[in-house]
């Protein structure tokens, strides 16, 4: 299935705005994170405890199961206000 990955703040600067991924059916966020982290270099930081993840604009944990065409965003802790 096709997953649209989006990146924000320092992750966006280091890794790019977005990337398309192909994931096996029923893959979890944790599996997608592993897949992206295996690209090496700066991608490994996606596995850091502090990095947050949202699927279709709702924050989720690693066990969340992905569906075809999901939008998955990775970002550092927020600092607005």
């Amino acid at each position: 299935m096709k997953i649209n990955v989006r990146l924000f703040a320092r992750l966006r600067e280091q890794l790019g705005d977005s990337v398309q991924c192909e994931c096996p059916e029923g893959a979890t966020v944790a599996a997608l994170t592993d897949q992206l982290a295996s690209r090496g270099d700066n991608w490994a930081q996606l596995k850091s405890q502090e990095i947050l993840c949202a699927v279709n604009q709702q924050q989720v944990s690693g066990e969340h199961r992905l569906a075809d065409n999901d939008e998955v965003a990775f970002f550092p802790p927020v600092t607005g206000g």
Partner: protein
Amino acid sequence: MMKSPFSPRSQADSRVISVQKEDFDVAALYQALQQNPSSGAVVTFTGLVRDLNLGTAVNALFIEHYPGMTERALSDIVEQAKQRWPINDVAVVHRVGRLEVNQQIVFVGVNSAHRQAAFDACEFIMDYLKTSAPFWKKELSDQGEQWLEQRESDRVASKRWS
């Protein structure tokens, strides 16, 4: 250019949520919050760009957000505040893009029958916004550019409401 997203209201209990590049007019936002006849109190907060952060002289900030999710997160926060306190109208405005020192970043305004609910709800919305709405600040100084880290004090401030 000043922009007030708070349009005249025809019904009670309105909510304004705006993420925008343009500056906002606090007087106009306040006046809209003042119009509710069942409100005896209006509490507002305005956040500004400060010239010094953790010892670094700051020239400007750049604020990034996640369009769509940001508005949704702000709506959720306002909804939680409405469920916890007897408040009437709420306005939340947050700017994005490059902001110079002393410029306005964020506005939260709440009205209610009595002041305590408005004070508490305003503080709750700011505390939750800081820890759960997807905005990121980058500091621009003579030393270069630096993304800000989330502060422990902000996490503590947010947790005290749970």
